[in-house]
């Protein structure tokens, strides 16, 4: 049995909490998010017969990456960078967060999530941008916390990446 800590990072309202909720039924109520700034859920995934307990740290989204959040990153085996496809600015926040995270805990696997795929028509981010990012070697997954599309894939992708790292 292996346990891994994973962080959900991204600007406010991009859908971090919604994605985790989609993925797992947790025990803590959302009120922790506003009080402590983090909520943790656990989900068991099996990858190539290897059981892994994922401890998902859902961190309160902030546009300004604050000191508070830094300590939460400690010990993470990987993280998600969640972007709201309908808000281009959230992609920039994601990059800033990625840089700061790497400064704090070093290079660990991460997956870039473009969420709210169900609102594709309103997206400000086009396919080309996303393709370019993949070509740069980033792992990119398009999801919809609303329909559930891509959610499982995103989590499995990151886990696999962590196990191989």
């Amino acid at each position: 049995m292996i346990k891994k800590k994973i962080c959900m990072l991204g600007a406010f309202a991009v859908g971090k909490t919604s994605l985790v909720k989609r993925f797992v039924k947790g025990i803590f109520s959302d009120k922790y998010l506003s009080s402590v700034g983090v909520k943790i859920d656990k989900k068991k995934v099996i990858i190539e017969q290897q059981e892994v307990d994922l401890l998902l740290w859902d961190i309160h989204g902030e546009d300004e990456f604050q000191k508070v959040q830094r300590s939460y990153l400690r010990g993470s085996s990987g993280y998600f960078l969640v972007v709201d496809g309908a808000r281009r600015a959230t992609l920039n926040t994601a990059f800033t967060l990625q840089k700061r995270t790497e400064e704090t805990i070093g290079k660990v696997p991460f997956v870039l999530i473009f969420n709210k795929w169900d609102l594709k028509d309103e997206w400000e981010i086009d396919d080309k941008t996303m393709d370019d990012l993949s070509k740069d070697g980033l792992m990119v997954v398009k999801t919809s916390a609303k329909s559930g599309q891509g959610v499982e894939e995103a989590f499995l992708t990151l886990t696999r990446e962590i196990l191989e790292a």
Partner: protein
Amino acid sequence: MNTKGHKSIAFGELRRLLVGPEQTEIVQLKERLADPELLVKDVSEVLPEAIILRSSRDKKIAKALEPTIEEAIRASVKKDRRALADALFPVMAPAIRKVISSIILKMIQSLNQALEHSFSIQGLKWRLEALRTGKPFGEIVLLHTLIYQVEQVFLIHRNTGLVLQHVTARRVAAQDPDLVSSMLTAIQDFLQDSFGVERGEPLEALRIGDRSVLVEQGPQATLAGVIRGTPPADFQVILRETLDDIHLKQIGALESFDGDATPFEPIRSQLEDCLQSQHKQKKRKTSPLLFILLGAVVFLMGIWLFDFIRDYQRWAHYVERLRTEPGIVVTTIEKRSGKKYISGLRDPLASEPAKMLKEASLEPEKVIFNWEPYQSLYPKFQLTRIKGLLRTPETIRLKFQDGILHADGSASYQWIVEARRLVKSIPGITHFDEEKIIHIELRDMEIIRERIEKQFLLFRTNEAEIAPGQQNTIQDLVANTKRLCSLAQVLGKNARIEIVGHTDNTGSEETNMKLSRERAHNVLSILTSKGFKEENFTTVGVGPKEPLLEEATEINRESIRRVDFKVTLTDKPKEGVVRP
């Protein structure tokens, strides 16, 4: 080559001059270090001091020696169990005793507690609470009597917040330790970040409701204990020591931790040692039910004691009565298997001991008698016995005094004769006083005699034959005479009836005398014709002389012409007694 050689010799010489003395010392030192024997000797010189010095600084030596000592003990046990057991006995025995007595104490306490909580109002409340919450009653009791309980202990990997090992106390429902551990780490981080505490400064306690979380931080791991109630002061120290020890032993595993907690399985027991608890001592207060029980016991014992004393007194009285009872001699009283055995002598005429037992309200089944029959000389029994022996009739009262048997009342002559004979064979009787006994036969004979003497037969004037119509009188006369004869025979007497003939005063003296004799004679003839012997009778004619009547009227003249009777009884000689 030569120069070179020369140079080297010269150099050697120089060196010898410069560092000669030191060199020998170095050589000596070298030799000394190379000689294991000497080295051992040297180390042995300083080893104790070295250990003392280091031990005063930290626990490294103890920790380092631990495995060796453990191994040594194991080897010793393997080799000879007894040696170690003997060595440890003085330490172990009191410890074991202490443990056992504390277990017993706990059992008593829990019994007391159960009793108290089962029946008090508070207990009822807790039962309701148990029903309401669906928790077992025991758990509710524990919760309410709890001073503190370490419910959970987490060993948390400091960096990742992942749980390395986790233990839970019995009956404590725990959430997913991974989540709690992560959340705890997050909260800790949050607090440290929010209030600007330095990372080195550990957060020691969190308090939520009646639970607190005590935290000890080490370089690689955090040890957190979740405690319900008020934790004891030394609990933090226990956590600290446990954490230090874990760091010391598991430092490698801690540093290389990458999500796999299996290497930390062995420290489980170490964490379990931290799961301490203490309950309120209030339960020492004895439950009222215990008092009720005690009261009941005392009450029952009282009843039992009362019964016991009462029975004891009854028994004592009974035995006393038995001992003083005439005709009973108690020789032994034994008690065997709940039963009492009484043996002795008993006159068959004495009171029935079993009956007396009932009168004394004692259980007859519990007493077994063994009586040897005997004759008591107690006067009452003597008399009873004599009465029985003599077949004394109701009409006779006997009195026995100073060896003299006094008889009073009436009895048949036959009985008296028999009694006279029997009395001689009864021991203790010197004299039989029968003076006051009235013989029934004698009395009867008197009556018969009177009757006969009142009877008479009538005659007509100048006739010697009895007047007709007197058959009944004759029959009566015959019956009476028969009875008289038989009674006389029983009593050993001779009965003689004088037949007296009378005439009235008319006629001459001479004829009257003759007539009266003839009349008596005729009556005698009638009687002898009925079977009587002549010798029992005498006849006499008295003429008009008896009774003398001054003025004879016709009426009394008739009654004067008669025959009447006179009975004479005389004693027969003794040997002439005839048995019936």
